[in-house]
């Protein structure tokens, strides 16, 4: 960024952090603007007339023309875009659902809690399992356990998340009958219970990359000078590992997690389909089959917003936890 050292800047009384924060926020805004624009134009530019898709193959020319008017598709592209931006900025959604006439925002708000709970459960699970596996792999470097844990990502990389879900249903739902095969149970416990398999499925897709990153980071920290010093000072191994090594190696993994977030959300939407959970994912796919244009656009925008916002929060968290990250920028 600049050639002045961080200390020099600190002495000059100018907190370098705010500039970094402004850049990160600006970047987040750019991504949201890009996604908004891309989704808008992609749907209109790619071959296929939405009005024709909504009404089906046998629609008359008049009804197609009428629907194009209602949707505003007969207007020039720039005017459509201005209108679209106007609704988006004033009302916070992409219009009314064609099928139910309900504002898109309301539809999304009804479905969001289950999806968010599923994502949260999956994140917790992924974090816990990755932590254990990475610690085991790093402390047993080049031994059998380490090799086994390292083979894991190569095998799971090509596993489609919906397929993993189906296999889990087959094993734990159909054969062992430990978990329900789909749907959502009654009450809090029932809900958590029925979300267990879906959460495992989503977490499964995240664990390999997280383990790989965390293991590499831990090994790097384990070999650093300060750990050698701590060992020499006869600090117990457990304390070094959990208090010092883990803390110093968790941040890059957290950042990686932020980058993978869009895959996590995409995976969650698909997994909802596999387990028949009525969340954002099922809303998206029922809207796709009924060609409910504004809903699809709305979901894309809200998800993009969530991805970017959480990504930004993670970057801020990383920077708060470790002042060194800001110097890398």
């Amino acid at each position, binding site marked *: 960024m600049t050639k002045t050292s961080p200390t020099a800047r600190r002495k000059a009384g100018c907190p370098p952090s705010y500039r970094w924060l402004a850049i990160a926020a600006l970047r987040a805004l750019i991504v949201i603007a890009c996604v908004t624009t891309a989704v808008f134009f992609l749907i209109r530019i790619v071959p296929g007339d939405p009005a024709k898709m909504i009404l089906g193959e046998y629609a008359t020319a008049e009804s197609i023309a009428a629907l194009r008017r209602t949707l505003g598709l007969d207007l020039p592209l720039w005017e459509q875009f201005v209108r679209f931006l106007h609704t988006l900025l004033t009302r916070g959604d992409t219009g009314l659902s064609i099928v139910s006439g309900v504002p898109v925002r309301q539809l999304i708000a009804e479905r969001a809690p289950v999806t968010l709970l599923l994502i949260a459960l999956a994140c917790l699970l992924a974090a816990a399992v990755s932590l254990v596996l990475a610690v085991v792999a790093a402390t047993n470097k080049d031994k059998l356990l380490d090799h086994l844990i390292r083979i894991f990502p190569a095998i799971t990389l090509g596993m489609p998340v919906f*397929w993993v879900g189906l296999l889990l249903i087959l094993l734990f739902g159909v054969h062992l009958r430990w978990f329900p095969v789909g749907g959502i149970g009654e009450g809090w416990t029932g809900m958590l219970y029925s979300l267990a398999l879906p959460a495992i499925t989503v977490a499964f897709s995240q664990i390999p990359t997280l383990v790989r990153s965390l293991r590499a980071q831990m090994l790097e920290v384990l070999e650093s000078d300060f750990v050698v010093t701590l060992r020499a000072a006869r600090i117990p191994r457990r304390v070094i590992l959990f208090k010092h090594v883990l803390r110093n190696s968790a941040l890059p993994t957290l950042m990686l997690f932020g980058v993978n977030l869009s895959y996590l959300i995409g995976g969650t939407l698909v997994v909802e389909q596999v387990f028949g959970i009525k969340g954002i994912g099922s809303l998206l796919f029922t809207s796709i089959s009924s060609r409910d244009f504004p809903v699809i656009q709305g979901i894309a925008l809200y998800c993009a917003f969530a991805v970017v916002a959480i990504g930004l929060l993670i970057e801020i968290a990383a920077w708060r936890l470790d002042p060194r990250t800001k110097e890398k920028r």
Partner: protein
Amino acid sequence: MSHRSISPEAGPLPAGRGWSRVRRTPALLAGSFMMLVLILLAVFIPWISPYDPIAQDLSAFLRPPSADHWLGTDQLGRDLFTRLIYAARTDLGIMVLAEIIPFCLGITVGMLAGYYGGWVDTIVSLVTDTFIAFPFYLIVIIVAFASGAGAQGIYITFMLVGWIVFARVSRGLAASLKRQEWIASAQTLGLPGWRILLRHLLPNILPQAVVVLMTDMVGVLVAIVTLGYLGIGIAPPTPDWGTMVADGQSFMTTAWWLSAMPGLAVVYTGIALSLIGDGLADLWRRKS
């Protein structure tokens, strides 16, 4: 990395040395072998299997695996093994096609940005840094929906965002390579820019980019199959691993292999490509 600088015009490696190195990279050999088996099967399947991948035979539906039908038949009486291999043609074909343009474009953009620096580099870095947070999966779903079922959505999306990962890799490499002496000496000799880029930078960037390509292809394959599973990818009756998993889902309790096998085919391809990628990375690391 700079070992090739001894002669300013880096030529191809002697074939014999190359092969003996390949032989000592078991991951590369295993991956290539797995891939070769799949490709050979896909090419010769009309001669291997007596069955048609699309024609239905309702008198022989949901048969368990047997000598006649190695992996059994599906709900419409079609031979599962035959469909599985025909699906490899569809899915692997789209996977390769979808990566060609992003691969070439990404390397070109990244190399130019890294080598020349300046405002080109500023813009390219800004774009790649921004798009790393792009909610890619959603965009694929939206584009696939908007362009109708088929491979179009996949091609369009990957052209849009697929080049970024290659641009990032080759930009970083080009920027670090250009500071090395042999590039400086090529410049002093008065070689034109395009020649330095093509004859000196490109051969050193390609190996790394190919390693990334292997991992990236697995991602593309999973995306294709996921779209098929959701019913917005390859349209039936064309065999595709994703739609096959979805079709078999209703018969999970009685004929689990209908859904399990196509997924296993994806995993097999994923492992093969990962092994090739790891092997190439090893080979390349040992060379330098």
